[in-house]
């Protein structure tokens, strides 16, 4: 791995990395991977745990009986909706939306959500399906359950800003994958190669093997992740052809567009009648009712048919449960989508399949376990990449940051420990908090999640004050200990344990506990290896001292740093402009319905974005890169604009 771009050798001649295409890609892979690796590790580890979100939620609600009676009659469902409407009418007669989850497989209670307006907080409550009384929160251990990991995975609990952040880093992941494949010269020769016990060599082997063997999965998961939020990430195509997203979606899915609030008071019609009408139309039980703008004359009601999860797991293009949209005041039927009816043509089918693929909503437990394995391999790919960066530099400091090098290396070491080992601690502490935080306290789910973040922060603090080698061992050992002691904690607090779960055939809870034990053993093994390594004399301080002694090393000149900045900006902003331009222009050329063409183009634009970024970094002079992206983006956008103007005339 001599191809690493070493700035000290080239400062005189180089604007960003010179030499060949592959060297530039190695540079891109190393630095892009390093700065994005921590966030990507967090996205990956939580996403991997999120594969089993339902099982984890079950484990986190130990009071819940194994079997929940789900079968209900039409009359019972109508009664539940009546109770829900009465409650909501009293609580918030007017607002943005009501939504009513009918008693079902996951919860025998009525689940209500509502919000007054877009800036207000979501409100939720559970009602007894027979009496309509609010259920005692203590009876049901309130928890975010496994969904916490899913929310960490796609938005870091930060709403739309978090989704953008994850999207940005997902793009970096695509770039790291492409540049990694180009960098790796011996993909097939080293396909099965792992040589343990050889320090840097072993880390590189582990990084390569974890990436190459799961490569199809990694590309799929990154691309489909972007595709799920396409209308948020890449809206240019939609806005070039439609006045707003609502119009676009109503065109694409051939259903009435959502109505603007009129601010004229009007009472929502009795929902139980609509429920029964919808059930007759769809010829199946309803599972969910939502009301937009309750209390306003623009109110509309949507009743969703029951979605047979087990049946749909056999398909990638899954048959939906169908739904009926009503005028919320008159009760007039506005739209009926039958169960299994597909809308939006081929492009929408592709987008839906991508969503199904990403969220592992098919193939049952087999796929969940295979995703878990590939996801863990992905997390290992990122962790080994980050560790490898420092292993290389511990042996010989490369002084990329001039006299600041020791400080930057220390920061990287700290973040490596705090993110890789620290997040493992935070995740297992989250499960501990579920058993230790008293049941019935106000905002209980919030406290569990707070505990998760506090544990993570403590890990960061610990990593920043301890020498890296010690921090690694201590944090890995703590994570292992917490994993291995979890069954004991569970037994002490709830009296439940893994053998009992197995005896009752409660495989979800047993699976969670056994997996935690397995991961605990794995962490203990890694901690043990890390501890053995400590006896080998390669202390951090020595490296830092050596690097400090070389403090005279040439600091990166301003031109070099500017050059990199220009490249990064050309790639991110310029590349985004080109992708946007393409998603505006391409729909005019594709021979399909406009809305479908917009969707197809937007899905393709992420590939174009990737290609442009790779191209920008393969070009030596930033000016040339800028010229390239400018003309491409401007060309696409102007042509598209001209096209829409002429088309509109």
């Amino acid at each position, binding site marked *: 791995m001599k191809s690493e771009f070493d700035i000290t050798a080239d400062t005189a001649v180089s604007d960003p990395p010179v030499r060949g295409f592959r060297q530039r890609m190695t540079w891109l892979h190393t630095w892009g991977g390093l700065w994005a690796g921590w966030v990507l590790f967090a996205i990956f580890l939580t996403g991997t745990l999120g594969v089993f979100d339902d099982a984890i939620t079950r484990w986190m609600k130990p009071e819940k009986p194994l079997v929940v009676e789900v079968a209900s009659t039409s009359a019972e469902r109508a009664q539940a909706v009546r109770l829900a409407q009465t409650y909501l009418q009293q609580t918030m007669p007017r607002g943005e939306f009501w939504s009513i989850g009918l008693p079902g497989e996951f919860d025998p209670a009525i689940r209500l959500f509502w919000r007054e307006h877009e800036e207000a907080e979501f409100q939720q409550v559970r009602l007894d399906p027979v009496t309509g009384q609010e259920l005692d929160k203590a009876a049901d251990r309130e928890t975010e359950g496994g969904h916490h990991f899913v929310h960490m995975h796609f938005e870091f609990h930060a709403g739309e800003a978090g989704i953008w952040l994850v999207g940005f880093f997902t793009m970096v992941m695509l770039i790291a994958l492409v540049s990694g494949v180009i960098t790796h010269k011996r993909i097939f*020769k080293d*396909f*099965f*190669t*792992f*040589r*343990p016990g050889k320090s840097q060599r072993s880390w590189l082997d582990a990084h390569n*093997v974890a990436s190459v*063997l*799961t490569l*199809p*999965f990694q590309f799929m998961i990154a691309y489909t992740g972007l595709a799920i939020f396409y209308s948020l990430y890449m809206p240019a195509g939609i806005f070039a052809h439609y006045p707003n997203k609502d119009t676009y979606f109503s065109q694409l899915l051939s259903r009435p567009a959502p109505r603007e609030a009129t601010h004229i008071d009007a009472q929502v019609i009795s929902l139980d009648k609509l429920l029964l009408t919808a059930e007759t139309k769809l010829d199946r039980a309803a599972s969910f009712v939502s009301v937009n703008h309750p209390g306003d004359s623009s109110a509309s009601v949507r009743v969703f048919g029951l979605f047979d999860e087990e049946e749909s*797991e*056999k*398909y*990638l*293009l899954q048959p939906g449960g169908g739904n009926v949209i009503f005028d919320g005041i008159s009760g007039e039927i506005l739209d009926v989508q039958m169960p299994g009816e597909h809308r939006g043509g081929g492009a929408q089918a592709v987008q839906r399949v991508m969503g199904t*693929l990403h969220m592992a909503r*098919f*193939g*049952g437990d*087999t*796929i969940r376990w*295979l*995703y878990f*394995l*590939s996801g863990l*391999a992905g997390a290992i790919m990122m962790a080994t990449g980050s560790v490898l960066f420092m292993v290389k530099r511990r042996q010989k400091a490369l002084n990329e940051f001039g006299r600041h090098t020791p400080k930057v290396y220390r920061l990287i070491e700290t973040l490596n420990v705090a993110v890789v080992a620290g997040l493992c601690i935070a995740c297992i502490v989250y499960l501990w908090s579920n058993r230790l935080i008293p049941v019935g306290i106000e905002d209980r789910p919030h406290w569990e999640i707070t505990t998760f973040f506090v544990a993570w922060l403590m890990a960061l603090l610990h990593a920043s004050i301890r020498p890296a080698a010690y921090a690694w061992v201590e944090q890995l050992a703590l994570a292992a200990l917490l994993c291995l002691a979890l069954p004991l904690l569970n037994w002490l607090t709830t009296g439940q344990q893994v053998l009992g779960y197995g005896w009752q055939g409660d495989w979800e809870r047993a699976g969670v506990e056994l997996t935690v034990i397995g991961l605990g053993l794995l962490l203990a093994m890694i901690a043990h290896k890390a501890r053995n390594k400590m006896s080998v004399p390669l202390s951090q301080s020595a490296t830092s001292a050596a690097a400090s002694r070389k403090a005279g090393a040439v600091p990166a000149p301003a031109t070099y740093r500017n050059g990199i900045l220009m490249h990064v900006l050309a790639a991110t902003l310029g590349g985004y402009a080109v992708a946007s331009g393409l998603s505006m222009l391409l729909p005019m050329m594709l021979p399909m319905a406009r809305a479908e063409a917009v969707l197809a183009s937007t899905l393709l634009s992420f590939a174009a974005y990737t290609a442009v970024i790779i191209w920008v970094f393969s070009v030596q002079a930033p000016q040339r890169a800028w010229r390239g992206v400018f003309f491409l983006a401007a060309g696409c956008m102007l042509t598209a604009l001209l096209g829409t103007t002429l088309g509109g005339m």
Partner: protein
Amino acid sequence: MPVSLAALAAFSFAYAGMTGLSLAMSRHHEQVTGRRTLSAGRRYFFRVLGWLLLILAIVPCIQAWGAAVGVVVWFGFLTAGGLLIVLMLPYLPRLAACSAAGAGIVGVLALFVAI
């Protein structure tokens, strides 16, 4: 075909197939057999055998999960089989070859039981 049998068969074939492909490479052939040289004939044999087993692994997948889901499941098992042999080769090279042969037999048996 029941899902559990299909999973067993697919994983067995994927593991055996990946092992076959690794034995077609002199580095891993030496790890397992201790022999420095790998004749062209043997290399060819292991490569063909490996590919055949990997392709065979798709049969139970498609039978149990249908064509669309089956192909994704197949990819997943290829990864799983590959990861296992990568970990076996440095630590338990002899057992790798024996277990791969065993896995091939288990796979065939699972297919027959399902029929």
